[in-house]
């Protein structure tokens, strides 16, 4: 090829780089596959996984992934392809994306969904910006009890638009106070289940709050819980966001899947990719990306968002999970999550923990420890138990616990026994 190009060495191809800017790489030599695997395995062996150590951490939790999901997302046609800009060569993934949108719409009760944001935190940021574009108002009202990571991301997303975050406190029952009133509110964000794991059924009051301020309602949801509880369309949600963890492993927190759905009337203000059904030139059903004039590659600085690459493959995993489980399987898993969480909560109550908030919870709950928390957590860790997330800023010695279908009775009994020993001072 050098001869064909009329050059003597490959270096000539780089002669436009100014000599003062030339550099070389100080990296070790190449390795073969076996060496790379051995190196990485050795490093990762320093991790302790869910299977080595029961964990009761909330937010992103371990869930069972049926083998058929792995098989589906391992198809190279899906995982090596690019964003489907050529629909004729991408019907497979486009149909899967359309089905994903359909499943999200069904679960959330919304009319449309996009093909993902990065995670629920960035989805919340985008939802706030979308509300601002729609009604030009400046405030985003959020519950005070929200995961602090999410709040930090939200602050970064709304900064450029000059929006202001207003926090609303929660009552003794751990639920957001709904009597808040304010001016210039673009959107109210409610979580259901909320950060304390509590289910909110004040449907009428939530909707009233939104109408009082003539604001948009953004609902933060847990997709699995929506197989058994009423969807946020039930209480007036305009935009729905959440983490689409189904079918996707924890992976130390990423990739996640930011669910984003809304009512049809707002679709042209939606960020991200959307797939639509249409026909080909023979009238046969076909799929393609649509409403692209919202997006950065066309609208540039005026786009609804800067997002380009998203978490598409996580959508396929989510869809494959839902397809494999069906409505019956989803409900079974959701009920199992509730049952196990209740079992663990009762067990903790029996050994001296308090539950500061009454009421129904899904698969997360708050307990407060009778003594210093850090001490307990550290000691438990050395005994092979990862406790929940300390939430001292909300509840003194409070722990937010997460339990799923993966927590067997044996695992919970074993953990409870160790916790009891520690509490009683028998080490």
């Amino acid at each position, binding site marked *: 090829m050098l001869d064909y190009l009329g050059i003597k060495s490959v270096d000539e191809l780089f002669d436009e780089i100014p000599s003062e*800017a030339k550099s070389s790489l100080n990296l070790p030599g190449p390795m073969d596959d076996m060496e790379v695997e051995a190196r990485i395995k050795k490093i*990762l062996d320093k991790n302790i996984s869910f299977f080595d150590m029961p964990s009761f951490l909330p937010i992103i939790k371990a869930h069972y992934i049926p083998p058929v999901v792995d098989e589906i997302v391992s198809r190279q046609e899906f995982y090596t392809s690019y964003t489907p800009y050529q629909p004729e060569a991408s019907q497979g993934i486009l149909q899967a994306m359309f089905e994903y949108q359909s499943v999200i719409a069904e679960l959330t009760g919304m009319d449309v969904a996009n093909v993902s944001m990065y995670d629920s935190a960035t989805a919340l940021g985008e939802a706030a910006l979308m509300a601002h574009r729609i009604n030009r108002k400046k405030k985003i009202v959020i519950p005070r009890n929200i995961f602090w990571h999410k709040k930090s991301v939200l602050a970064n997303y709304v900064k450029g638009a000059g929006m202001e975050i207003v926090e609303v406190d929660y009552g003794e029952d751990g639920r957001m106070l709904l009597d808040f009133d304010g001016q210039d509110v673009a959107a109210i964000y409610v979580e259901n289940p909320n950060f304390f794991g509590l289910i909110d059924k004040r449907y009428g009051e939530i909707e009233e709050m939104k109408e009082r301020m003539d604001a948009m309602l953004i609902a933060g949801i847990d997709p699995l819980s929506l197989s058994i509880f009423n969807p946020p369309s039930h209480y007036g949600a305009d935009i729905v966001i959440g983490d689409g963890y189904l079918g996707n492993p924890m992976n130390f927190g990423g990739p996640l899947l930011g669910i984003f759905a809304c009512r049809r009337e707002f679709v042209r203000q939606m960020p991200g990719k959307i797939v639509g059904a249409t026909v080909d030139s023979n009238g046969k059903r076909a799929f393609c990306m649509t409403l692209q004039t919202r997006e950065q590659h066309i609208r540039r600085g005026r786009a609804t968002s800067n997002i380009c690459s998203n978490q598409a493959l996580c959508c396929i995993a989510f869809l494959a999970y839902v397809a494999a489980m069906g409505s019956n399987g989803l409900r079974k898993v959701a009920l199992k999550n509730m049952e196990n969480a209740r079992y663990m909560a009762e067990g903790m109550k029996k050994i001296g923990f308090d539950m500061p908030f009454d009421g129904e919870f899904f698969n997360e709950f708050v307990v407060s420890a009778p003594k210093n928390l850090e001490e307990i957590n550290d000691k438990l860790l050395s005994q092979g138990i990862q406790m929940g997330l300390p939430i001292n800023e909300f509840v003194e010695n409070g722990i937010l616990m997460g339990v799923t279908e993966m927590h067997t009775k044996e695992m919970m009994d074993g953990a409870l026994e160790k916790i009891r020993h520690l509490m009683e001072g028998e080490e």
Partner: protein
Amino acid sequence: MAKYDEPLLIEIEGEESIIPEGVERKSLNIPNLSEREVMKHFLHLSQMNYGVDTGFYPLGSCTMKYNMKLLERVARYEKALYTHPLQHEKSVQGSMEIMYHLERLLCEITGMDAFTLQPCAGAHGEFTGMLIARAYFESIGEGETRREVIVPDSAHGTNPASARMAGFEVVEIPSKEGRVDMDALRHVLSERTAAFMLTNPNTLGIFEREILEISREVKKVGALLYYDGANLNAIMGKTKPGIMGFDIVHVNLHKTFGTPHGGGGPGSGPVGVKRHLEKFLPVPRIEKKDGEYHFNYDLPHSIGKVSEFYGNFAVLLKAYAYILKKGKELERVTERAVLNANYLMKKLREAGYNVPHPGRRMHEFVISLSDIKEKGLRAMDVAKRLLDYGFHPPTVYFPLIVDEAFMVEPTEDETRESMDAFVDAMKKIREEDVEIVKNAPHTMPVARVNEAKAVKEPILTWKDIVVE
């Protein structure tokens, strides 16, 4: 590719839906299918999709290199998959070590001083970079005046979109002979400029050889120089953004570092900065003390968080495996990518295709198909016809400054034979009957898709199709 009239999931016959005790929600319209039906459905869908393993995928600006299977293997270790992001640091030392090392490797490759791995995609990295620029100017009392971000007209659409999302006004400057127009740049640079966003080589595949002069001009007015790393595959081991004078850099692990694109994601867009901007990077930063890794959240100047946890860890792990495997041979990756692009460009030029602007290219090039308009054809028609020849077409209609653009990036992984076959197809298409090209594709699972109808009558879920 296979052709199926594959029904929607909801159209496949399944079992009855049962509502167990304790369920409040009465209706949930999700089918109950056997595993066999589910697998068949998705297998059929996959067979109607073109991937990198299927064939030549010269999508310009996307760097569709082969995704080594090694990367998939290491990402499936249980100790990577089943660790929780909030586990005690002592129990995730392995993941933290990989992230810490990856940051160092990216510093070496780009010539920057510090990295964050938190951004989940290239555009997310740009947004993070712009937030850092904003925090920097606020810290020196220039937050109110530094309102503008300059981008060339050849820039990726994400550049202006990201700058605007961070609250900046965008100033676009024209290109001159395929490069930054220095006079136009000088004209718009002022004490109002926060940053100039540039990719080098640019989206035409042309190296901005006046980069050092550009850097001097930008710094003279106190602004920052931002590197869009989409085209980093063109320069590894030859030059570094840090040496060229860039202050902030994002890299696309899903382009340069061989992690798969996943049909649109997940990607990863780490951001590197020079020392004076390090304190603004997102929290947490990974630090090493007495042989142990720690997350430091206690950084008062940090912009805070840009995603929920630490970024797309699985993608970081794959990129780490890629860099370990290639090592210093990354320079060969770049050489081969640039050699392939120049070879393919010359072949297409000789075949009569117009490549605007003379001279060399780096890892990609742009041809203009404007001459086919007189036959009543558009670049998209040729793209669709290429599908019939078994090729994924190049990026079409970008960059916007080239009429009827075809943006071609063969990457280092293509052989001379596959590029020659692509050129042959391009030659044949030139000679073909106009109607055949205009009505292409003829061999795909579907014929030309009516995208206008999809916009005019949006059907966005199966509820819009299936009558219950």
